[in-house]
């Protein structure tokens, strides 16, 4: 007689924008199956990643116990130690470094491994380090710093968006470098977009690739292929058309906007002698003039229209510019503060439910996140704010996910001590001196909320006991706090924290929330940014210095940096098209469907959804003697990687694409064997806030070995 199966509602915590329902089917303490939301609408259905979670939890490569390095850093040679020895060592090292060099010699390098409310990796680590006396931190959200800075400069806030359910009110939606069909970007985001399309919203997708999102929403006539890094040029040319044809909403500009005249002067060529005509933009962007005119006219006349910015365009050199230009277009068309419109701003809205509180950092030293490796290599002598002696990593596959992996490897040889919290022996963990094994979210409880759909919360019930000797990051830091005398770091159980969060967040019945696994906040209409600022500007000015939407930003003007002009401009990117004969191909490195950042790269069910491969247009492939499925070497001055080639018409000639997230695996000659794209990318930040600029990157591609047998599985298996 078999034991009954228990259904445990839980969720998924990754940095994909979605927070989806998972239901674990548990028998005798073992998860036998995972399903998702089959309840009432809106169902928060998980994706291909979440559904494969059993393979994460029970993966044979799970880190089981604490490890101490025995071989050289990066060799992956470790020996098992006890938790006591591990924590004693870590505590001793933290104390030693602090006493000898000061707390700024510790770098708290935490990242988005888990983005829930309690076990939120950046918060857990920060809380510990700030309460311990502080540590140097990385500044600049690698993922979306440029759009944050642009939103701040224009509107005076860091996030400005509509709930995705408002899209049904849009006559037109421009989805710009937006690939939510693969990346997620919020549970049900793509589902809402698709339904809006079916109900009559016209959708245009603008992207260097004909992505799955383009295929889903735009079909051929509404997809616009654009040269990477040139989005601002297309936008300012659209502004040119609107001005020339008298389509700008002058009443809106007069009432709500500062500095349109200066922007107009730039667009018309009165500032630099170059009118930003559709012909000018065509030469830069590859988008035909007629298409630019039609797009401008449509966006100006089909109201309301939602210009939605994905993050791809701003992970480029001068990534603030296309975001600022988009906001200028939104203002020129009066699409701000109205249902169906969009301010083209950064759209992660804070949830009403609190997260683990973090006191201020007593240490003020920060390192620009893109220059972390330089900082380890050059320190204070190199102009950085600290000399780092100890690197503490949690929820962050730093080496793999930051640009310029090979430089990162050199950098990680420098610190005296490296501690890493991890679930697997990732490329980053291989450089640790002490590795601490961490639970997955199914082995602990938590609350999760969804990007720009702040009105649903998921209770992530603990499904099974921690595997092996794994502990949560919070438990680990609690133990360290005890050893190091950090008073009041954590005096609560997880359940107590979560009960308090739920109460403060307005969830009326905590026990019911835990049992059902989902709570939907009552909501009369979708949130719309700046409704009050537009309907009653005298009483509700924008939180900018002038109180208006700043197309001319006084804050940016004060920086006096030509790379961040006070009005939006097109600035040609570094490593842009045509700038190198040696490395003639532009490389983009998007989020794909087979990872959430670098999570799931080792999960078989997910990896077989789509082979990891380099997108290359047949023209570029044929010119290099590359046939479908050939192993190719993608290389530039910073490194090289081997990956199979996929000849496809879904990418423009001159551009190749390799999804990021696959784990760096260097061969004897230093060439990466796994298609880990960051061996190629440049570690240089966006100007204002040091966001990543992954997509400004030039490479060359060559066949790896002429008679290689294609490792690609047959097309019929994977489509």
């Amino acid at each position, binding site marked *: 007689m078999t034991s009954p199966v228990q259904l445990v509602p839980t969720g998924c915590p990754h940095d994909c924008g979605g927070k989806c329902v998972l239901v674990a089917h548990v028998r005798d303490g073992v998860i036998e199956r995972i*399903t998702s939301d089959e309840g009432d609408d809106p169902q928060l259905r998980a994706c*291909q990643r979440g*559904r494969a979670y059993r393979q994460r939890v029970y993966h044979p490569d799970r880190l089981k116990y604490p490890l101490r390095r025995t071989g050289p850093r990066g060799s992956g040679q470790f020996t098992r130690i006890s938790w006591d020895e591990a924590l004693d060592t870590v505590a001793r090292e933290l104390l030693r470094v602090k006493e000898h060099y000061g707390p700024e010699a510790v770098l708290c390098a935490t990242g988005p491994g888990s983005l829930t409310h309690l076990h939120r990796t950046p918060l857990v680590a920060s809380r510990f380090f700030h309460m311990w006396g502080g540590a140097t931190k990385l500044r600049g959200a690698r993922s979306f710093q440029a759009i944050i800075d642009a939103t701040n400069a224009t509107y005076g806030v860091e996030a400005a968006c509509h709930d995705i359910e408002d899209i049904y009110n849009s006559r037109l939606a421009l989805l710009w470098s937006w690939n939510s069909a693969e990346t997620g970007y919020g549970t049900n985001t793509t589902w809402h977009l698709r339904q809006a399309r079916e109900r009559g919203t016209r*959708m245009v997708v603008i992207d260097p690739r004909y992505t*799955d999102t383009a295929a889903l929403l735009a079909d051929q006539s509404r997809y616009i292929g654009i040269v990477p890094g040139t989005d601002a040029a297309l936008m300012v040319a659209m502004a040119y058309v609107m001005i020339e044809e008298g389509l700008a909403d002058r009443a809106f500009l007069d009432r709500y906007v500062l500095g349109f005249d200066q922007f107009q002067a730039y667009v018309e060529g009165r500032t630099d002698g170059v009118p930003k005509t559709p012909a000018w933009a065509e030469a830069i962007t590859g988008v035909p003039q007629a298409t630019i005119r039609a797009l401008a006219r449509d966006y100006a006349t089909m109201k309301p229209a939602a210009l939605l910015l994905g993050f791809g365009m701003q992970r480029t050199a001068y990534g603030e510019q296309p975001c600022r230009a988009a906001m200028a277009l939104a203002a020129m068309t009066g699409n701000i503060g109205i249902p169906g419109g969009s301010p083209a701003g950064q759209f992660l809205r804070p949830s009403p439910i609190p997260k683990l509180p973090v006191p201020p950092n007593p240490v003020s030293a920060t390192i620009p996140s893109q220059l972390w490796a330089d900082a380890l290599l050059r320190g204070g002598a190199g102009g950085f704010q600290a000399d780092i002696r100890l690197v503490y990593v949690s929820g962050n596959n730093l080496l793999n996910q930051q640009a310029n992996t090979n430089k990162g490897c050199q950098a990680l040889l420098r610190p005296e001590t490296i501690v890493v919290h991890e679930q697997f022996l990732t490329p980053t963990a291989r450089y640790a001196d002490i590795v601490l094994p961490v639970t997955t979210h199914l082995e602990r409880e938590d609350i999760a909320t969804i990007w720009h759909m702040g009105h649903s919360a998921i209770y992530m019930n603990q499904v099974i006991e921690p595997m092996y000797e794994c502990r949560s990051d919070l438990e680990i830091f609690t133990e360290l706090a005890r050893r190091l005398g950090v008073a009041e770091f954590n005096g609560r159980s997880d359940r107590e924290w979560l009960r308090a969060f739920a109460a403060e967040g307005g969830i009326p019945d905590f026990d019911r929330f835990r049992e059902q696994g989902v709570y939907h906040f009552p909501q009369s209409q979708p949130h719309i940014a700046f409704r009050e600022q537009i309907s009653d500007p005298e009483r509700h000015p924008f939180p900018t210095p002038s109180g208006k939407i700043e197309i001319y930003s006084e804050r940016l003007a004060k920086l006096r940096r030509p790379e961040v002009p006070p009005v939006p401009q097109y600035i040609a990117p570094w490593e842009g098209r045509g700038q190198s004969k040696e490395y003639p191909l532009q490389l983009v490195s998007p989020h794909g469907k087979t990872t959430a950042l670098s999570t799931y790269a080792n999960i078989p*069910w997910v990896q077989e959804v789509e082979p990891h491969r380099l997108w290359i247009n047949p023209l570029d492939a044929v010119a290099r003697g590359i046939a479908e499925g050939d192993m190719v070497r993608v290389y530039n001055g910073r490194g090289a990687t081997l990956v199979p080639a996929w000849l496809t*018409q*879904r990418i*423009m000639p001159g551009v190749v694409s390799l999804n990021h997230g696959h784990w760096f695996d260097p061969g004897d000659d230093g060439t990466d064997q796994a298609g880990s794209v960051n061996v190629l990318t440049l570690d240089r930040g966006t100007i204002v806030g040091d966001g990543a600029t992954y997509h400004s990157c030039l490479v060359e591609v060559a066949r790896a070995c002429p008679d290689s047998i294609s490792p690609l599985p047959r097309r019929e298996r994977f*489509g």
Partner: protein
Amino acid sequence: MTQLAFYFDPTRCTGCGTCAVACKDWNNVPAGPVSWRRIETIEDGEFPNVRVRRLLRGCLHCARPTCIPTCPVGAITKRADDGVVLVDRERCLPNCYACLSACPHRAPQFGDDGRMQMCNFCPERLADGAKPVCVAACPMRALDAGPMDHLVRAYGNGHWTEGYPDAARTSPSVIIAPEHPGSD
């Protein structure tokens, strides 16, 4: 007999693979060449005028399955009440492949044991009044399942799409949505 069938809207499908993974998890099919539920993606055209199409692959529980008469050991049957085509894996002759040769949809799958396996319409879920796991899983609601006449009433009677064999051969129990969706 109330034939059960699948419905697929290829224009909603993004090729995300959630259906394939959900099926593997539900049925404990390991990573590898066996998939009971697959999506095939086909592209044509020239950048930027490209077209991407998706095809639903897997057993379509045909009204006139050609796999059944070709099986030398009678391991495949068609259920009388709901038309679901099922293989008895214990009875299957390993590495025979006769059914694969006979199936115009190439539905039969073979793992390490050489015995045929394929979509069984999620009998446990049906018994609970739930739809197959791929249908429940699809984040784009591109799949549905139920009695054929219900699906025809809801979605029309498109039985064929380019890339499928002629429907008259085996009469697959599937409704495919037309490929020019929405109005804009």
